[in-house]
């Protein structure tokens, strides 16, 4: 690569828009200069250098690293993960866990157990791709191998996305601006098209439709959840998704899970909800901080799930009628 110090500023900024953004962050105006970068830096007043908080050689090195980093982001393919292996460690009392669980792309695993039993701890172990270096001593293998440190610590290309229960939106943007911002950071080819797709998909997941022009901070809990699930399914690079409960609040949980697994994601859900707990192919039972059991969902359980779902549909329908100001006066038929 040629030395960037010798490149004219206009050529450099044309080829690498990130450099122009960097200058504007520093409050420097380099827009039309034809000077070579090195010459331009040399002619800056010392006072300007003090103001921006970087020496000339630090700026030069920073710009070089910035160009490399952006090139890197463009080249790195999104992570593909075929399987995740969870190898047990020990529970709170130090008793070894015997579990060894292999989860393949497109599978959903649920995590059940009393509040405080250690479900979040297990999610945390998966999130950081633990290598026996967390208090539980558990290990996570990716495609049968320990993940290489570069992947483990890659910040914005993380293998694991986590949808936590107590999240808020901090930015005040419309839904469209918000998803488009994410799409630009993900460097997708057609951000507008992907944005429309995510919003349409979120609207399919929630009973309460919302417009792209509404502010994200005005969304209800269910709408928020639906939007985040659609985003993680269609826009996030992470092949592994951790979900800390999907509330009952107006999210079609079955479709949400189908959406995630059709993208070949590996999904872990910590839940108290019977409809979710039985929807996974397997469920991990947590007790006293340890993996007490791993249960495969049986044929009878699947049949029971169907019945539970029709009950749930009945409840939802009543909820909807109440919302519309109607009475529920007929004798209810709980046909079990």
């Amino acid at each position, binding site marked *: 690569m040629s030395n960037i110090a010798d490149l004219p500023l206009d050529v450099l900024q044309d080829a690498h828009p990130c450099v122009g953004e960097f200058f504007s962050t520093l409050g420097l105006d380099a827009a039309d200069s034809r000077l070579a970068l090195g010459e331009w830096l040399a002619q800056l007043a010392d006072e300007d250098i003090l103001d921006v908080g*970087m020496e000339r050689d630090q700026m030069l090195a920073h710009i070089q690293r910035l160009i490399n980093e952006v090139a890197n982001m463009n080249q790195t393919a999104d992570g593909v993960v075929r399987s995740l292996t969870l190898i047990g460690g020990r529970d709170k009392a130090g008793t070894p866990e015997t579990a060894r669980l292999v989860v393949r792309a497109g599978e959903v695993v649920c995590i059940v157990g009393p509040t405080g039993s250690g479900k979040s701890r297990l999610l945390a172990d998966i999130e950081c791709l633990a290598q026996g270096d967390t208090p539980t001593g558990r290990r996570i293998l990716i495609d049968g191998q320990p993940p290489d440190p570069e992947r483990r610590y890659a910040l914005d290309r993380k293998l694991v996305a986590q949808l936590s229960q107590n999240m*808020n939106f901090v930015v005040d943007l419309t839904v469209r601006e918000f998803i488009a911002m994410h799409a630009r950071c993900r460097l997708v080819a057609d951000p507008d098209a992907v944005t429309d797709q995510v919003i349409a998909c979120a609207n399919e997941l929630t009973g309460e439709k919302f417009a792209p022009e509404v502010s994200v901070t005005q969304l209800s809990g269910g709408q928020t959840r639906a939007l985040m699930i659609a985003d993680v399914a269609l826009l996030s690079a992470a092949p592994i998704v951790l979900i800390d409960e999907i509330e009952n609040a107006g999210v079609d949980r079955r479709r949400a899970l189908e959406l995630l697994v059709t993208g070949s994601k590996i999904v872990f859900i910590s839940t108290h909800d019977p409809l979710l707990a039985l929807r996974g192919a397997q469920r991990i039972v947590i007790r006293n901080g340890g993996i007490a059991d791993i249960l495969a969902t049986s044929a009878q359980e699947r049949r029971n799930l169907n019945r539970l779902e029709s009950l749930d549909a009945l409840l939802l329908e009543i909820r909807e009628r109440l919302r519309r100001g109607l009475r529920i006066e007929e004798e209810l038929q709980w046909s079990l």
Partner: protein
Amino acid sequence: MQLITVAGSPSVGKTSVILRACEWLQREGLRVGVAKFDALSTSDDQLYAQKGVPVTVGLAGALCPDHYFVSNVEDCQAWGQRQGFDVLFTESAGLCNRCSPHVAGVFAICVVDALAGVHTPKKIGPMLRLADLVVITKGDIVSQVEREVFAYHVRLANPGARALFCNGITGQGVSDLVAQLRQAPATTALEGHRLRFPMPAAVCPYCVGETAIGVTHQRGNVKKMHFVDQEQGS
């Protein structure tokens, strides 16, 4: 002894992150101490003491906290040596976003807060841009989208640096942080070391006690704003 400088704006969670790291290092049998710098007052020393982490406190009072830090960091290093620590953290707040207490050759952490908004990484000066490791806190209370966008902006603000999410309450991410700390060089003495970048210039009349407003009172290192409507022909 490994010296680790930790800097970040007030209330981002520096103390919580350091506490979680201290617990981890202590479990591994290492001797850990903290030198806590603050402006007016602090009660964080009690938090450290509760965890059995030896702590020394420096209050800058009427001085610029970051200038005060540089004037005292060598003495903190010597204190740490006398106590026989394996790891000494210094904790200081970069109050003006322009300060950078990072020392060349000493492992430097900048703590930023995901709650501060996705554009914050662009606004923090050398404290973030020249750090070796960026620790992002409060990631669990913002959306997954904001987490990814924030991380992207951190990466552009300090390309090439390691960055990670760490939850100061639950400790999620601390194992990653500790793994990074292992690579910190040992610092035997600070004499002759240099800051990575000069602190903001000072010594205007207000630095030395002037309280009157008005141009006749402003001598020395004074900088005035530009107003577009007053600029003559361009």
